[in-house]
């Protein structure tokens, strides 16, 4: 019985992990882009970006998942996205907004003197960003990012609202068969994944602890 349950939970975990990695893949670059938007010198662009970030961070992710999956059909009678895609889109948008604020914090924490020094040396803005700022940013945002990564692993449980069969869904389905423990057993898998992430982040932080 344990083997059968483990197998079916592992199948759920695959969906969970797929969502996790794909969200990171798309949300990290998008988040950087959004952070540029929210630091832009163009007031309208900055306003719109901050507005979007406000809406996305200010509403529950569960609601966003529902809107992205059912919204097109309910409002415009359009065909729906596949369930997993809809879940992914909502996660990418949501997490990109959170990431953008972390990136912004990281970028703005680099002293202005370094930009000025770069300018004096005749470097262009992109050169300053990629050669001087970015590395320091990465170093500084590791701890808040590890928070987000770990939260993301657990947030994937929300997608069962639109019937994406992730690990909690698989665990819960055993309740109907009279077995309660598989639902709680899912915790082991979350702990394993997050344990691994914690270790990786710890190593990464150590690697980055040069200059000092």
């Amino acid at each position, binding site marked *: 019985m344990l083997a059968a349950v483990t197998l079916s939970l592992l199948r759920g975990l695959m969906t969970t992990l797929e969502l996790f990695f794909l969200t990171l893949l798309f949300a990290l670059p998008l988040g950087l882009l959004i952070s540029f938007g929210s630091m832009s010198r*163009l*007031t*309208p662009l900055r*306003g*719109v970006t901050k507005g979007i970030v406000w809406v996305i961070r200010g509403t529950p992710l569960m609601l966003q998942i*529902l809107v992205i*999956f*059912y919204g*097109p*059909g*309910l*409002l*415009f*009678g*359009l*065909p*729906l996205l596949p*369930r997993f895609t809809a879940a992914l889109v909502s996660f990418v948008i949501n997490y990109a907004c959170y990431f953008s604020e972390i990136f912004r914090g990281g970028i703005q924490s680099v002293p202005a003197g370094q930009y000025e020094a770069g300018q004096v040396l005749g470097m262009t803005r992109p050169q300053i960003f990629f050669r001087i700022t970015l590395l320091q940013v990465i170093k500084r945002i590791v701890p808040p990012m590890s928070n987000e990564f770990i939260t993301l692993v657990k947030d994937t449980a929300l997608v*069962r*609202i*639109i*019937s994406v*069969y992730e690990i909690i869904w698989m665990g819960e*389905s055993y*309740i*109907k*068969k*009279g*077995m*309660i423990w598989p639902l709680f057993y899912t915790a082991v898998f979350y702990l394993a994944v997050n344990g691994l992430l914690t270790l990786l982040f710890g190593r990464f932080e150590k690697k980055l602890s040069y200059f000092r």
Partner: protein
Amino acid sequence: MKRKLLILALMLGLTLSLCACAAKDKAPQDGDTAYIQEKGTLVVGITDFAPMDYQNENGEWIGFDADMAKAFAESLGVKVEFIEINWDNKIMELETKAIDCVWNGMTLTEEVTTAMATSEPYCLNGQVVVISSDKAADYQDTDSLKTLRFAAENGSAGAGELESLGLEYVAKPTQADALLEVASGASDACVIDLLMAGAMIGEGTSYPDLTYTVQLNSEEYGVGFRKGSNLAEAFNTFWKKAYDEGTVLKTATAYGVQESIIEK
């Protein structure tokens, strides 16, 4: 700077109105049956609910409802696809065409009949009070229920019965969760379908210490289609024919629900 803002606002407005136009063009609908046949699959929204819909060892959906849904799809000349849905979202799932019908031992409540095109009822059911066997003797009529702490599936027919009796309850996502409340002792009793109680509690099941006492009402099961869909009619014709041919009763007997089938 002001002009830039104005242009931005105009562009936003334009995009929104374009979206609205696109929506209107889509509005007129051909018959739902034609839509299903063109698409080639009937997508059936279900939940894991023995003996109506459940999976066998190979992961194939079987059960009285599942088997009949397969036969119905065949009569339309299309393939069948089962999707386990979140029961709370069944109306949205239908409206957005994520599924084509809800066929899962669904009680024809007023909420269901106003939000969906429903078939004629095909199966009888009732809501019963489930309680642990050692307490059952004291709770054999409706009046005795007042002192119990109840659980019921959120928005289900059972929850409705409790509300009309003026009894409070803990709302759970599924009937199985409500049973779990009772089994764990978090609630004294729960109200679930008679069919489900018959299949899930008592000796030889995972809940040997539970039993059911009072039946609070009697109700009918039906299949739900999109509002305005002509599939409900196609279903009624199919069902009458299947009943006359004996398929309905044969399938029902295989899953032990023949007593509840409505005569056609």
